[in-house]
């Protein structure tokens, strides 16, 4: 079975192309082929939070409608967040569903599953099978998972992991053979889009996270959100090389010993 893959705007840009390249290579290696959705549209990056706003649901709904009932897999935390919440809204809110269906002039195809790549690894492959595929275990590497907001909250809609004590990314890093560092601010917000309007507020929020990770002895923070990565990289500790930030699929490709030298970030 192949899965539909929704890349989203940022993974086609230099900011996060490393995540796409490494994740797609690893998926092929692991027997989980991802097929990019034709003519996909940007998900909108944020989910509309008012009851009466349907127009910004149209674009992510196109992806749900196009998938029919095949599972859609995402890498970016924001795409996962928006597509999953859109899917939940279409499933639960008949009025919204009918209006969007009418706008798109398409029948609602039913409840399309929206999966994050990490869920695919956990539920379709399994951590033990992943561990067996590892050729170069990341022994002695002190890796910390940074979840941020979009994967986890709101927990009832995202249904991804425990919103306060998640473990999927730690289990993943453990399967790669790394020494996993669990630190208190791994689910705290990096400042998100305040990077555009309130740079200092974002830098303060990100700085708290990076300093805590350092205090707990992490040498690398790993994330699936391009904006989290960018924000965390604006902090003095990262700029001075005391700690680095990677996409979760980079240590994955490394542990699978995949040739990824063409990736520049």
């Amino acid at each position: 079975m192949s899965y539909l893959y929704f890349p989203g705007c940022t993974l086609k840009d230099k900011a996060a192309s490393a995540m796409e390249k490494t994740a797609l290579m690893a998926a092929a290696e692991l027997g989980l082929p991802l097929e990019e959705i034709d003519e996909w549209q940007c998900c909108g990056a944020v989910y509309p939070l008012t009851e009466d706003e349907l127009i910004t649901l149209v674009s992510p709904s196109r992806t749900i409608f196009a998938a029919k009932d095949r599972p859609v897999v995402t890498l970016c935390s924001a795409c996962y967040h928006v597509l999953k919440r859109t899917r939940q809204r279409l499933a639960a809110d008949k009025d919204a569903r009918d209006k969007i269906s009418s706008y798109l002039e398409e029948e609602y195809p039913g409840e399309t599953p929206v999966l994050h790549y990490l869920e695919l690894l956990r539920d379709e492959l399994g951590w033990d099978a992943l561990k067996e595929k590892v050729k170069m275990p990341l022994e002695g590497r002190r890796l910390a998972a940074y979840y941020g907001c979009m994967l986890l909250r709101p927990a009832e809609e995202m249904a991804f992991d425990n919103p306060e004590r998640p473990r999927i990314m730690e289990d993943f890093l453990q399967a790669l053979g790394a020494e996993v560092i669990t630190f208190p601010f791994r689910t705290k917000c990096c400042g998100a889009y305040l990077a555009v309007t309130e740079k200092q507020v974002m830098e303060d929020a990100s700085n708290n996270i990076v300093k805590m990770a350092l205090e707990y002895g992490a040498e690398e923070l790993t994330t699936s959100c391009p904006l989290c990565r960018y924000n965390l990289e604006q902090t003095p500790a990262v700029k001075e090389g005391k700690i680095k930030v990677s996409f979760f699929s980079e240590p994955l490709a490394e542990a699978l010993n995949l040739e990824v030298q063409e990736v520049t970030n």
Partner: protein
Amino acid sequence: MQKQNNAVNKLHSEIMERSGQDFYNCIQCGKCTAGCPVLSAMDLHPREVLLYLQLGQEEKLLSSKTPWICASCFTCGARCIKNLDLSRIMEAIRVKILRPRGAACLSPGEIPKEQLEKLPQQALVSGFRKYTR
């Protein structure tokens, strides 16, 4: 005076309807404020936003920085013992200001060129979604 009251009441019900949140359920415990990662930049604390709504003084929220500082991280909602999603109330306040103006609280010209080139697409798309209509 009557006219002003009507306008205020309209704003009050708009925020309740658009957010889908019954803010009278808030018991002012302050967990939203305690967990907010960007609290230090706010002029009204998240708990105070709910308090002013309960007191019928919602016009104070229209001139506050707080809805524009909120990063929609959903931590307040995750911790609310009354299951209120404050991020939706912040959005209802933002759209109240943005929709009628059809204008922007952010324009590309305001972003320094050097920063504009560095920011990932995701930052720009989400920023413009939140600060313009």
